[in-house]
């Protein structure tokens, strides 16, 4: 090894850095990815109307099997803007719940009464509102509500 002043071997530093970066990705990764799949659609997928939007998106994002997810809100902004709610772009309070400062374009899908497993039909409602999300390690992992 290279002569030095008694500090750790460079390889040790390298190992520590790699370990640190991988740890930072592991735990909130899966939940954050699910949050994106379920709640972020940007740019908004183009469809004939909001009802068909919901029927298609709920199906595409895996929320209709085996049970029709009762309600779900899609946010039509880039993921990084949604992420920012957990940092500077939101007001956080207890239980890691953070309210966005800005209002976002949203489509909220609610299951229609005639639906049952295997046949999920939805109603869509478009609005521009602030939202509340739960954050874990500065990443949104749960959509709490439209404010």
């Amino acid at each position, binding site marked *: 090894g290279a002569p030095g002043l008694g500090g750790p071997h460079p390889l040790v530093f390298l190992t520590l850095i790699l370990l640190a970066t991988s740890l930072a990705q592991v*735990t*909130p990764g899966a*939940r954050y990815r699910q949050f994106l799949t379920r709640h972020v659609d940007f740019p908004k997928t183009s469809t*004939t109307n909001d009802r*068909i939007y919901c*029927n*298609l998106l709920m*199906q*595409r994002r895996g929320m209709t099997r*085996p*049970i029709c*997810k*009762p*309600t779900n809100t899609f946010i039509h902004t880039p993921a990084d803007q949604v992420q920012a709610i957990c940092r500077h772009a939101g007001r956080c309070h207890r*239980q890691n719940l953070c309210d966005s400062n800005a209002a976002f374009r949203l489509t909220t899908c609610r299951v229609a*009464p*005639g639906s049952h497993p295997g046949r999920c039909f939805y109603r869509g409602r478009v609005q521009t509102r602030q939202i509340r999300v*739960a954050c*874990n390690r500065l990443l949104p992992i*749960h*959509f*709490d509500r439209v404010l």
Partner: protein
Amino acid sequence: MELNIQCEELSASRWTELISSMKTSKTVRLDDCSLSASSCKDIGSVLSTNQTLSELTLSNNELGDSGVELLCKGLMTPSCRLQKLWLQNCNLTDACCKNLSSVLSTKQSLTELHLGDNKLGTSGVKVLCQGLMDPNCKLEKLQLEYCELTPDNCEMLSSALRTKSSLKALNISNNKLGDAAVKLLCQGLMDPNCNLQSLHLENCHITAASCGDLGTVLSMKPSLIELSVGENKIGDPGVALLCQGLLNPNCKIEKLWLWECGLTPASCKDLSHVLSTKESLTEVSLIGNELRDAGMELLCQGLKDPKAKLQALWIRECGLTAACCKSVRSVLGTNQTLRELHMGGNKIGDAGVEMICEGILNPNCNLRSLWLGNSELSAACCRSLATVISTKQCLTELDLSNNSLADDGMKKLCEALKHPNCKLQQLVLYDIYWSSEMDDELSVLEESIPGLKIIS
């Protein structure tokens, strides 16, 4: 052999593979696969060669009229024996109806046609009906939801009902029809030739004014076992008229959907009477009607009658609170036929659920499926729920979505899931916020219990 693909973009090489396997498939489903008119050429040739293909679903693909024209070419070949065809939301217009009509008047094998979410319009549906009327046509199920039908279409549909004794199910929901048009339909329905079993007229702009005629149909046609008039403001007067028909001994109704009909507690006396008299009635939906506790209590009286044979009850979003849960508990303690109870969207809270759990624990209760989503529940009711989960072996499905159960509540449920008496197969926990630790615990738990699926 079944081919079933949903929500997938298919590369050229994958498409070639699929065409190959389609040639020997019995059922093919390619839902929302970015198919286009050009895909229809290939599918058309499959249709003309595969004699075993009996079901084809191509919903949610921009096939367009030209695509359907190509499909119909394949459908028309004598060797094609297709029975069921789904083309919902395929960007079709009246232009393709001539082709579809030809298929209807030629293909005796075709028993089901689903064309919802296509702007066929008055003229398109008229052309379609011409094919329907052909003696060769043996169609059993016709679905035209959101097809922009108008009252003008109902005369021909009425004729079809009069002549097509093969027609078992008609769904024309979500088209602006109105009372006059529905009365016309009723005339067709009453024809001795008509054997319709299932009729869906949801959101068809019907009011109490047509309910007399619908009631008459119910009282004359034992074949009609399924009726849905959901999302029509028929109100209490409308339901009263329907109930008159329902109570007739000729009526053998099994499934009745009256969701979002503008009903109030006043409807519940008649409905209760139907529940306690009509032994054929197995499924009722009253979702989205302000029945309130008073109305629910009346319904419960009917459900306690030994003649009540209801198996599934939907009372989501009916303005119920804990106050009516005493009566629900009483029903659960006496009624042995109820298997499914959907009560979500009511502010019954922990107190209400605790009473319901007591009812479920009664040995008389054979409930299999309990839905309590969005019911203002908290960790406090999880002890009662845990007791039910670990005791009631007949309970296989439980929904607690959209309730703030918190880690505390979830922990209690997890303990119960581990119990050997727990026979739960599906635990639905959508939109409940819990910690990452709880998330991990649930994953581990699900893996350790083979029959259990946790849906979140």
